[in-house]
Each structure stands twice: as structure tokens, then as C-alpha cells.
């Protein structure tokens, strides 16, 4: 049963709290050594999926297997203590009455104290906390507590490592640093890992593959760049960045736009569709001196321009288009600050523009 099979597999998992259905026929699988991210807004069911995998929550419907062995199904519930999974909690849940060393040793089943101690120090060194073995949790900073929590979860060499929003308790400066550290520790350990997060950048930074979830369903599973560049639907598109949006009707397999027709090859004529453009899809340049614009380039009014760290952020008014006033945002790398009230030349990067049928219409 072992081998190439998935290390963690959720099949047809459906779960409800009272009348509220939080998971709806969810299928997720993680391959050996893979780092999988469950990404979605709060309330999408991602944490419940994680808790079901750990066995903390009892499965209601579906099937869960670890290393090819079914651990939860109809009539079967392997309790968390016999699943050999490691878990890192949002609040770390370090045992306050035990020092760092004894926290890390807590999950070690070896009877020999010296072996336990050796293994505990091994993982503490891995996370760079070897010097804090005698400290108590309340003496540590948030980042240090997170490292100890990670060491504690990794110490028993779990089949799967589960991390529930592991960086959300850290301030933003520290977060990027700890995230990078955690990524290397987890990858070096070779442990199959499932991370729950609501932060798309965090998911893209960490994950081999991302599972995007919404309202209890899996919206799309794929590599980070697939999800960003080939989103399956409007939800996935808008979840990864702020977006410029307008609606139109498909005619001749395209939707008309101020930048000329946008191809929509899969949509039937007459379909109402929404066009989604990432801010960086609007390529902004200064108006040419002669004022002449190439095909597909639009002359657009600048409402405001601001410097946002590495990029310039423009508010653009496209005026009335098919009866709707369009106000778009564009992100231009570096400093590009046209005067307010000036016009700029804008072309559209079709690779970062997506057309989806409006909700309730077939593709």
C-alpha cells in the first residue's frame, strides 16, 4: 500500500456543524515530501479539513487515508494519538508548565531518556532553538515559540505535518523571515506537509501545490503559477490580487473592451461575461508626442498617482463604456508618476486578462 501512493488523501469529505455545511465533497491528496497549501478566506472549511486529517474532528462522511492506510471512514475513527501526525497550531499551544526541551520530548515514545533527549536536541538545533532548551514558553518571543512548536511537531517524525495558519500570530516584519525558515526546515525534513493559510502570497511562497477553497468546496488545485496565470474561475482570479473588472456580452467569441476585443473562445455568443484584469495587466506609458496611438492602445485620464513602495499605483478613468463608468487601477513597477488630469497610453496584457461567464451562465 505504501510507495508512490498519496501520503495524505481526503476523498469525498463532507462535514457540517449543525445546519452549516463547512465541507462539501472535498478531495485533496498530498504526495510524499510535498508541501501542500490549503488556501481560502476564513470560514471556507480549510481548518476543518486539517482537523479532520489530524483526527481531532471526527469524520462525518467520506474517507481519509494516511500513507495508504484508511484512518477515517464510515464506522472507523483512528484517534489522533494513533495517526502519527504532527500539528502546529495558530496559537502554538506550547505546554506552559513544561520547558522547551520537555515540550519537544512530549511526543517522543522512545523509552530511553537519553535517546529522547538526543532527538529533541536534534530538532531544536534544526530550528535554531538549541540554546533555549531550559526556557519556558512564556519567556520566548512569538517567533521563538513558533519554532519550538514546529520542533515539537517534527520530533516524532510524523507521517504528515499539519500547520494551521502558523504565521498569523507574528508581526509582518518577522513573518517573512519565519516563513522562509519554516520552509527550509520542513523541506529539509522531507516531511509531507499541509499548511492552512488565508494569505495568497504565503501560499505561493511556501507551496509546491495550492488547493484553493471557498465555501466548503475546492475551487482549483495546481502549481502556484498555474493558479495565478491560469485561474479556473473568477473566485480564484480575484483571490490572488486586487482586480479590474467589467462586464460584457460575448460576440464572435470575444468581448468588446476599450482596448479592443478580448478573446473568449470557449464562450457561446450572447453569453454575459465578466472580464478580469490584474492591475499589472494595464501597461501604462506616457502619451506619444504626436498623440497617435497604435491599435489596442487607449488614451486614458489619470485621476491619481501614488508611490506604493516598489511600484507606482495609478487610478485611471476610462469614462463611459457600454453605459458603465469604468475606474481601473494599474500598478507600474518603479516610479511612474504622471500628473493628475494628464492622459496616458494604456495597452492590455492579454495573458493577465481573464474572461469568465457571469455566475448562473454556462461556459
Amino acid at each position, binding site marked *: 500500500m505504501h510507495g508512490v501512493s498519496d501520503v495524505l488523501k481526503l476523498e469525498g469529505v463532507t462535514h457540517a456543524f*449543525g445546519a452549516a455545511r463547512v465541507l462539501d465533497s472535498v478531495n485533496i491528496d498530498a504526495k510524499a515530501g510535498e508541501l501542500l497549501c490549503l488556501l481560502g478566506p476564513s470560514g471556507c472549511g480549510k481548518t476543518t479539513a486539517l*482537523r479532520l486529517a489530524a483526527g481531532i474532528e471526527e469524520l462525518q462522511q467520506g474517507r481519509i487515508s494516511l500513507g495508504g492506510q484508511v484512518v477515517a471512514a464510515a464506522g472507523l475513527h483512528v484517534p489522533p494519538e*494513533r495517526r502519527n501526525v*504532527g500539528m502546529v497550531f495558530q496559537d502554538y*499551544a506550547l*505546554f506552559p508548565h513544561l520547558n522547551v526541551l520537555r515540550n519537544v520530548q512530549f511526543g517522543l515514545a522512545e523509552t530511553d531518556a537519553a535517546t529522547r533527549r538526543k532527538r529533541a536536541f536534534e530538532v531544536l538545533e534544526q530550528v535554531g532553538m538549541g540554546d533555549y532548551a531550559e526556557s519556558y514558553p512564556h519567556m520566548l518571543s512569538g517567533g521563538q515559540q513558533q519554532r519550538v512548536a514546529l520542533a515539537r511537531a517534527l520530533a516524532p517524525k510524523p507521517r504528515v505535518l499539519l500547520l494551521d495558519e502558523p504565521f498569523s500570530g507574528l508581526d509582518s516584519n518577522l513573518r517573512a523571515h519565519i516563513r522562509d525558515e519554516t520552509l527550509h526546515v520542513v523541506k529539509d525534513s522531507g516531511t509531507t506537509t499541509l499548511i492552512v493559510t488565508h494569505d495568497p502570497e504565503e501560499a505561493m511562497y511556501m507551496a509546491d501545490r495550492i488547493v484553493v477553497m471557498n465555501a466548503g468546496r475546492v475551487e482549483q488545485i495546481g502549481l502556484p503559477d498555474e493558479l495565478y496565470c491560469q485561474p479556473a474561475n473568477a473566485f480564484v482570479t480575484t483571490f490572488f490580487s486586487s482586480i479590474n473588472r467589467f462586464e460584457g456580452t460575448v460576440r464572435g467569441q470575444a468581448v468588446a473592451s476599450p482596448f479592443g476585443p478580448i478573446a473568449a473562445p470557449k464562450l457561446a455568443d450572447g453569453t454575459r461575461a465578466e472580464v478580469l484584469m490584474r492591475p499589472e495587466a494595464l501597461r501604462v506609458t506616457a502619451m506619444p508626442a504626436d498623440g497617435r496611438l497604435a491599435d489596442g492602445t487607449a488614451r486614458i485620464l489619470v485621476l491619481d498617482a501614488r508611490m506604493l513602495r516598489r511600484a507606482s499605483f495609478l487610478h485611471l478613468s476610462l469614462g463611459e463604456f457600454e453605459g458603465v463608468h469604468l475606474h481601473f487601477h494599474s500598478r507600474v513597477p518603479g516610479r511612474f508618476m504622471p500628473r493628475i488630469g494628464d492622459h496616458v497610453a494604456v495597452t492590455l496584457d492579454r495573458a493577465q486578462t481573464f474572461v469568465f461567464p457571469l455566475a448562473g451562465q454556462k461556459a
Partner: protein
Amino acid sequence: MSSPSLTEPAATPAFRAFRRFSGWTAFTFVTAALIALPIVVVLAYVFVPSGGIWQHLASTVLPGYIATSLWLMIGVGIGATTIGVGTAWLVTLCHFPGRRLFEWALLLPMAIPAYVIAYTYTGLLDFAGPVQTLLREVTGWSHGDYWYPDIRSLPGAIVMLTLVLYPYVYLLSRAAFLEQSVCVLEVSRTLGCGPWRCFTSVALPLARPAIATGVTLVLMETLNDFGTVQYFGVSSFTAGIYRTWMGMGEPAAAAQLAAVLTLFIGALVIVERLSRGRGRTTHTTSKYRELPRYHLHGVHAVLGLLAAALPVLIGFVVPAGALFTWALRTGPRIIDQRFYAEAINTFILASIAAVLAVAVATAMAYGLRLRRSRATTYAARVASMGYGVPGAVIAVGVLIPLAAMDGWINDFTDAHFGVRIGLVLSGTIVAVLFAYMVRFLAISFNAIESSLGKITIHMDDAARTLGHKPLATLLRIHLPITKGSLLTAAILVFVDVMKELPATLLLRPFNFDTLAIRAYQLASDERLADAAPPSLAIVLVGIIPVVMLSIAIAKSRPGHEATEQERIARSVADKTAMERA
């Protein structure tokens, strides 16, 4: 998605089938059933015909019992509310010399059981006591020359109970005043409220639920009191139950009286619920700072000082001083082998009860944490309801089923082995401990449940995913973290058992006396000074929880982080068992 483990998932039928009935859940249900047993037995006697006895009681003494108990409740309720709320407001929001001292000293009367203060004041105020003797010496009057109020009367009992019970109201209303946001009070001051209007139109309405809870506790303790009313010859329910059982030898009629009393208490709880009303008293802001105090000067300061000092003086200093003086005199004679034996009995009984109460409560609270459903929550509530039921009622409810079981056991051994093994359950320490569990389990359960509630459920999840079973998780995580609260719970039960009189008196094995029983017996024989050493011992131990509370109060300044001491304070305040239940 937050805290899903606290809600009952709607499982599909196939899955519901395998939700195993865990041992923890079973334990909760069995405990609840056992605790409910005596109360159910008593209530069931409403339907048991007892021939003419009940008709006789109903037509003769019952109206008197009801009237007396109502008067007691009205008197003690008004007295304890006035003193409790008044002193709480005084020490929380006014500044006068000695305020800090009175903050905790006002709790001291709690250490004295009502029957002890009753014996003490009788000793001080009766004809041969120092007060009347002094009066006669000064005036030259002799017996019959003057009118003197009889302490052994209904008003006397009201005063005695008020003196030792007002701290419940004080404690809860003080906490409520402290919890009120300083903003609310400051807003009312900027709107032109003087101290008096602030108190009556803002602070008091906001504190009303807490005050109501405190008064309910006071009234329950009033109905529970046996020693005072029995000694004063005041015919309230508990005295009547005792008389009907021990004097008339009619346990069935006693049980019926107990049932009426239990219904009384049920009504009390319902009234308290209703009195909370619909108005929201949750605090709209959470800004806490040191409260701005009204500075009292001159005459006002003296009056404030007096108002705070009087309850402490009359409720603690005078009786404790009298006990101490008498104990010095009678101690050498009273403190003998027998006294030590009684002290040891008391210690053993209270220790076993405390350990048992904490162990059972821990298992129940943890079982509830593992799997909370409507049924288990309800079972826990049932298991906590004994706290509202008077010891005399519980004693009746415990003895009847245990005696029946002893009968069956003896019939069984007689039939199979030809021997009757005698009383195994009733008339042994088992019956006494059972009654203590029924009455005091709620104290330990509430303290332990609230302290477990402060441990994030992620601790459990972490321990479980790290390979530990529920029991190992409890032993290695929860017990070490909550050991302070467990000890507090044990101390509270210990002290309450030590003070307990009616259930012990009715259920104790033959010739098995405790300090409380000894004090009761000596007082009954009018040897009030001789009753001082055992009484003083009870008071001294009773001071322990008061000291713990005092420390907590001294440290619980608004705006401070919750400390271990505050947790103690809360668990002591969690004697408000019924409030939860």
C-alpha cells in the same frame, strides 16, 4: 470554523452509529444520576401516601413552617442586601480611612458558621451572659425588673443569619462595581450625576444581576440553615424536617416536608432567573482603570468608617473574641482525647470528601470537554444542582434509598449465606460522604470547569496528535496546569464539609462525632462556653478561604492582568453554583 469541537456536529446516521459511547461520557451520566437520586427520592414522596401524618402536619405545623421560612427569607434578604451592597459601594467608590483594610475584612464573617455565631451571641446576651450581668450590676436591677429582647427568636435568627451571610452579596456586588467600566461612571458624572444618583441610576442597575445572584445564594443558605433555627426554637422547614424525623420518627412525612422545601428553592431559582430581566447589562466598553473615588471628609469619613466597621465588628470581631476568651477558659477541660478524636474524624471526613469532590468534578469537567453534547451538559447541570438543596433535605433523600439498599443486601446475604452483614451503606461514612458529594460537588465542579475552560482546546489537540490518549493528556497537561485551582476547589469543599451540620447530624455513624456535631451537642446542653473550643477550631479553618479571597481582592485591581489569585477569587465566587446551573 472556530471552536468546532464545542458544537455537536449533525452526523449522518451511518456515522452516528460509530460515535462510541466513551467512558468519560458514561461517568458524567452515572454521576448525574447518583447526585440526582436523593433529590428525586424526596420529590417522589410528594406522591407517596403517608396516611394521616401528612394531613396532620399540613393542618397544624406546615403553615407555620412556610410563614417562618418566608419571614426568615424576607428579613435576611433585606438585611444582607442592604449591608452587602452598601459596604461594597462604600469601599469600591469612596475613599475614607481604613478603606483598604475593610475591603477584605468585610469578608471575615463568612468564616463563621451561622450556628456558631448564634451560640456565641446567645452566650453573650442571655440572662447569665456578660451583657445582662453588666447591666444589672450597673443599674442594680434584678430578674424581671427590665425588658430585654430575646435573642432566641425569629428576629434574632434573622440578625444572626444576616451577619454571616451578607458577605455573599458584598463579594458579588463589589466585583460587579469593579467590573463596571470607568467610562460609564465618568459619562454619568459628566452628565451631571452626583455620587448618589450615580449609585442609584447607573451602578446599581448595572450590578443588579450580580446582586440578585448574591441574594439568591443568601436565601438558599438561609433555607439551608439548621443549627441556628433549631437552637433558637424557630420553626422553619429544616427544623421541622429534623423534628418530624428524629422526634416523631416519621421519615416519610419528613421527606414530604423536604419536598415542599425543595419546591420552594426551585421557585427561588426561577425568580432569580426572571429577575435578570430583559435589559442587557453587558458592558459596552472594556476600558478599565483605577476607579475614580469620592473622597470622604470629616463627618462623612467617620460615618463611612463606622458603616464599614460595624458589620466586621458585630459579625466577626465580637463573636471571635468571645469564642477565643471562652476557649481559653474551657479549653484545658474540653480539649481532651475525645476532642482530638473528633478533630481527626472531621479532618478525615473533610479530606476524603474534598479529594472525592475534586476527582469526580475533574473527571466530569474533562468528560464534558472531550465530548460536549446537550445531554452531557444537562447531566452536568443536574449534578451541580445539589448545592441549592439544604443538607437536611439531602440527608433524608440519601438515607431512604441507602437504607432500602441495605435491606436488599442483607436479605440477599441472609438468603444465600445465612448471615445478615448489617448496615453497609446507611449509618456508615458512605452515607455521609454521599450526602457531601450531592451538596458540594457543584463547588468543585464550577471551580474546575472554569479553570479548564481557560486552557485552549489546542493544548488537548497538541497532546493528542503527539500520541497521548485522553487520560494521559489529562494527567500530563491539564492537571499540572490547573493544580492551583484544584487545590482551591479542594480547600473550599474541605471547609464547607467541616462546617456542615444537618446532613452530618442525621447521617453520621453511631458515636462518630465531628467538631461541628460536638459544638452542636454542647450548645444544646446550654454549655455555650464549653462549645467554644470546637467552634473556634471551625472558625479558624473557615478563615483559610477568606484569606485566599482577601489576597485575591487585594491584588485584583482593575486594569491588571488576571492572576492566579484572581482565578482563586473567581472560583470562590463560583460558589454561585446555581447561577450556572
